């Protein structure tokens, strides 16, 4: 009898422990982001207050208004950075997707000599730390005069994204049964038509998520951008944020607002792809 009650007690304790554990873990995960958003909305006086003010008394969008009206506070031209980031990320994503699709298709559908060696070689190019790559790129771009242009950044990000895009797209094409395209070819499609009308639509969501992943990489990249971009011509948001923090007058509220501006597109896009991302990455885990 007592063993039954003790067993029941233990189970209940375990359950409570589980809920508490989950709660703490989620709190730690969410808190920093929440704190940034909150700080961007409250007046600077409250951020600086000693003893600290925990419950905000007034919230306003002043920081955002200041940032986007002309040259923002602290002389950070947020609009220019935003535009540069957008142009560079979108263009490089589109190009990386096209290259990644043809490469991923080759890996998924053909057998050829040295396949796994080439695949590993592609992956190894990603192992080169950004800062190590930035040295020769800086020298070469400076020589050829394309430093501090959108073109040089796009070129760099395409190369940065291609290996990973190929990995993901390869996985998604493998999930599309080969028979479907073959059936289409028997029905009179050319291989090209079979690809666009059968395989591409089926792998579509996966390809889209690979695209979003590439976009995020470009959107967030810092190590290379910090050296290759030199002025408002091509500086991206991460570089802008660091410029901001390096200034002497520390405007925490403004910086938090800039951080929020950076995170919002990333947040939205990651929500869209979360399902495909995991399935794409783990596909090779058990069926390689």
């Amino acid at each position, binding site marked *: 009898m007592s063993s039954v009650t003790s067993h029941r007690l233990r189970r209940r304790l375990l359950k409570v422990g589980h809920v508490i554990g989950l709660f703490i873990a989620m709190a730690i995960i*969410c808190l920093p982001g929440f704190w940034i958003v909150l700080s961007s909305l409250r007046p600077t006086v409250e951020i600086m207050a000693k003893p600290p003010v925990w419950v905000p008394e007034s919230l306003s969008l002043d920081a955002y208004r200041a940032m986007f009206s002309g040259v923002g506070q602290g002389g950070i031209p947020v609009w220019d950075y935003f535009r540069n980031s957008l142009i560079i990320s979108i263009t490089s994503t589109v190009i990386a997707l*096209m290259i990644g699709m043809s490469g991923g298709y*080759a890996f998924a559908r053909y057998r*050829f000599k040295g396949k796994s060696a080439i695949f590993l070689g592609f992956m190894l190019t990603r192992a080169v*730390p950004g800062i190590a*790559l930035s040295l*020769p790129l800086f020298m070469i771009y400076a020589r050829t005069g394309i430093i501090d242009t959108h073109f040089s950044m796009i070129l760099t990000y395409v190369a940065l994204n291609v290996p990973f895009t190929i990995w993901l797209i390869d996985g998604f094409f493998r999930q599309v049964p080969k028979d479907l395209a073959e059936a289409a070819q028997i029905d009179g499609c050319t291989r090209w038509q079979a690809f666009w009308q059968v395989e591409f639509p089926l792998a579509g969501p996966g390809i889209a998520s690979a695209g979003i992943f590439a976009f995020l990489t470009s959107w967030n990249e810092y190590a290379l951008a910090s050296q290759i971009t030199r002025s408002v011509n091509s500086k991206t948001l991460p570089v802008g*944020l660091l410029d901001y923090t390096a200034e002497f007058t520390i405007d925490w509220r403004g*910086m938090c607002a800039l951080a929020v501006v950076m995170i919002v597109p990333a947040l939205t896009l990651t929500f869209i792809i979360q399902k495909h991302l995991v399935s794409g990455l783990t596909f090779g885990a058990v069926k*390689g």
Partner: protein
Amino acid sequence: MKNFKLSAPTLLLLPAIVVLAAVIVLPLLFSFYSSFTPFRLTKPDTLWLFVGFRNYITALTSVDFWIAFGRTVLLLTIALNAEMLLGLGLAMLVNKATMGQRVLRTLMLFPMMFSPVLVGFQFKFMFNDNVGFVNNALQSLGITDRAIPWLIDGNLALFSIIVAEIWSSTSVFAILILAGLLAMPKDPVEAAHVDGCTPWQTFRYVTWPYLMPFAYIAMTIRSLDVARAYDIVKIMTDGGPAKRTELLWTLIGRTAYSDARMGLANAMAYIAILLSILFTVYFFRKLAAARQQIGAEW
């Protein structure tokens, strides 16, 4: 014109190979060459001077370099192990949850959306000794009444960086291990239960081998971007205070751009590249082995 037609896969792979060759392989060859010259940005002529292994010897005999090297390896070891354990724990917690699992999974992804620069910034803000959340909380709770100099004291700064690094990357492990847990067949666990295994034995000998490939995928992905730590360190402490948080990558950046000693920096960069390639190949191999192991059982 016969035999001129390239085979289909070659043609399809060509654009990828061209881009990677142009933007990554060729520049790396160039920097490999320049690592044998005393090249300085301020003196372009020095690019044509050949000095053999002098840069490598300078790098390998410099104390700063080895300290940064050791600190990088230490940081990676601590961070990767902690991320692995915490990720595993988090994945198990979420997997056990009976309701709201979708919401929990989405929340779990949250740190993945933050770029390293943002992670660095947010922890710089949180750990700020004056207005930071951590000190404010500690003071409000009455645990301490003085401001702890999180980013100003050398050891604490390294600790703060490791915290930031773990926060940002645990979810990579958690999400992949969770995918493994969800994909796992239920029968072996039940069989182990019937055979009288303790929960620990079930986990150690049944669940864990199944999760291995997923953990190694996470490791491979992480080892591909270990250099992400550069962004975090750069924004949080910039290698300071007094070089106490200098990592290989910040040291390279400083040597190249602040001291303008490109040749030496390239030599150091090669050692760093070697390090990350070793990591990648190691985990890639482990992945293949773990995959084979369960492949035989499935």
